[in-house]
């Protein structure tokens, strides 16, 4: 009985029955990490003694909390008190978090074992985890390939069974895209559903924290733990959290599934297209009605994103100046200290985006770039609002291609940005999105993800459709050969 390959729900059942202890579960996952992480490189920081101590504490208790004893990996972008928090960046080398993010407090209250910190693209900027200052994480399905990004470490950990579940963050696809490339479930909640307090900000109006899990049912469970209004986050919505497991198995009969014609583009990988179309066929057989819809401003989404996200990021990252925390490079004066600290501490992708964002906001260019992008963003939101009048859920590919090889796109940032073409609009509109496995390419065997997109706060519908599809297909049972 390999505990580390099981799901939250399976383990929870055993833990509650007393068939297995929390320590055994955590030990099993730690053993797995020991066995494979030198190849996968998903983890940046691990404290086995600390994890086992947490597990022991759970064993001493009643184990009735929703995640009691479940080891969960945390993307290095979330503050966990006493743990390092580097966001994959040299500029935060040696920095220790002095407070818990709200989602971490929620996990603790739910009895989760906070396992360790996973690798990511620096400050969440990237689609491959190649932008991490600490080296790249490998895709468990093919160690020569990227796991996706920016939450590549969390995705690889879950897909490689180095964690039962993980938390990541999604600004333009950073949960969904790696989930698709590694064959796990990745959910980006509606903006405002999950607290951002303690999430190191990349783009404030786009960021959300979300779960990586092995199954849709696990995602529903984990989402229920981290969702909810937070008085420390002014953008968090004061609405009650529904029971995400209540209607999970209601099926898709009577639901309308929208197919955006702009998302099936020439140049898309044929196997990806075929898998996604097959998935749509499956949904039809399950009783869903497929409707063609249009999202006319799709073509502008990447441009809008790369102006707004970089503009917000240029301000959010200004605090990294070597004054109060992080690594400092001392200069002759204040100006030089700032410039050298940031020049040395930030990697090239981060610097590139800060420059673009600063430029988009600067005098003389603000209206043409930043302001115009925010207006087109409104049009993108409207596209979705109109589309959701005709359908309950939109279905699309998550990524245009399966995982590419490490190094293949690093020299072409624009090409890299186009990876996000199917996921980015969801963040711009503030909607919810989920990726789940829908097949593999033939040779090599690489995961393909199906994306479901819902209107704001429609996670119950999203999860219900995903559950129906998952349970009718074998993909979620596949495991990498690692």
């Amino acid at each position: 009985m390999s505990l580390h390959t099981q799901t939250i729900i399976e383990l929870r059942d055993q833990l509650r029955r007393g068939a297995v202890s929390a320590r055994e579960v955590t030990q099993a996952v730690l053993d797995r990490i020991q066995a494979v992480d030198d190849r996968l490189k998903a983890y940046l920081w691990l404290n086995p003694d600390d994890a086992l101590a947490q597990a022991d504490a759970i064993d001493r208790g009643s184990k009735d909390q929703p995640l009691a004893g479940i080891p969960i990996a945390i993307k290095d972008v979330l503050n966990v008190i006493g743990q390092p928090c580097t966001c994959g960046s040299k500029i935060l080398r040696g920095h220790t978090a002095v407070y818990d993010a709200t989602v971490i407090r929620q996990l603790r209250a739910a009895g989760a074992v906070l396992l360790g910190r996973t690798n990511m693209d620096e400050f969440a900027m990237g689609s491959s985890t190649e932008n991490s200052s600490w080296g790249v994480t490998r895709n468990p399905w093919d160690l020569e390939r990227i796991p996706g990004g920016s939450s590549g470490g969390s995705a690889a950990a879950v897909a490689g069974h180095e964690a039962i579940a993980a938390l990541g963050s999604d600004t333009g696809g950073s949960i969904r895209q790696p989930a698709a490339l590694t064959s796990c479930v990745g959910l980006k909640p509606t903006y405002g559903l999950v607290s951002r307090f303690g999430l190191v900000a990349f783009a404030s109006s786009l960021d959300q924290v979300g779960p990586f899990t092995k199954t849709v049912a696990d995602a529903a469970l984990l989402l229920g733990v981290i969702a909810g209004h937070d008085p420390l986050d002014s953008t968090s919505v004061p609405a009650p959290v529904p029971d995400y497991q209540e209607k999970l198995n209601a099926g898709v009969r009577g639901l309308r599934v929208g197919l955006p014609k702009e998302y099936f583009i020439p140049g898309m990988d044929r196997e990806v297209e075929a898998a996604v179309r097959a998935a749509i066929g499956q949904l039809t057989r399950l009783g869903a009605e497929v409707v063609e819809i249009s999202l006319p401003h799709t073509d502008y989404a990447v441009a809008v994103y790369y102006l707004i996200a970089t503009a917000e990021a240029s301000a959010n990252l200004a605090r990294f100046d070597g004054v109060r925390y992080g690594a400092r490079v001392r200069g002759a004066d204040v100006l030089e200290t700032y410039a050298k600290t940031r020049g040395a501490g930030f990697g090239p992708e981060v610097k590139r985006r800060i420059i673009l964002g600063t430029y988009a906001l600067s005098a003389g260019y603000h209206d043409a770039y930043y302001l115009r992008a925010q207006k087109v963003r409104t049009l993108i939101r409207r596209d979705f609002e109109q589309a959701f009048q005709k359908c309950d859920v939109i279905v699309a590919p998550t990524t245009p291609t399966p995982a590419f090889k490490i190094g293949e796109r690093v020299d072409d940032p624009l090409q890299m940005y186009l990876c996000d073409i199917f996921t980015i609009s969801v963040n711009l509109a503030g909607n919810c999105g989920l990726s789940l496995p829908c097949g593999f390419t033939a040779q090599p065997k690489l995961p393909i993800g199906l994306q479901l997109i819902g209107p704001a706060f429609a996670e119950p519908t999203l999860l219900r459709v995903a559950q129906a599809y998952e349970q009718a297909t074998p993909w979620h049972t596949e495991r990498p050969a690692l």
Partner: protein
Amino acid sequence: MPEDPNQINIDHVAHLARLELTDAEKNKFAAQLKDMLVYVAKLSEVDVTGVEPTAHAVPLTNVLRPDEARPSIDPALVLKNAPESARGLFIMPKIVE
């Protein structure tokens, strides 16, 4: 020679952002950013007449908290994270006006 609208004045912008760049970086970024600006220029095709910019992702207003004092953090914790501190202060090279 008319100014190329897609050519970012890298020195100026890097200064605004307090980023020290090597010459190699400047050249590389200038070229890459130029490509990006050419790409984002497609936004000028869109008719945005009468369209309000999206300032916030959620339509909330008046998110306010009561004026209650709470305990502050132990200064030792934060000074420990400081690259340089002395006499309870965060130390920087001398600030000159």
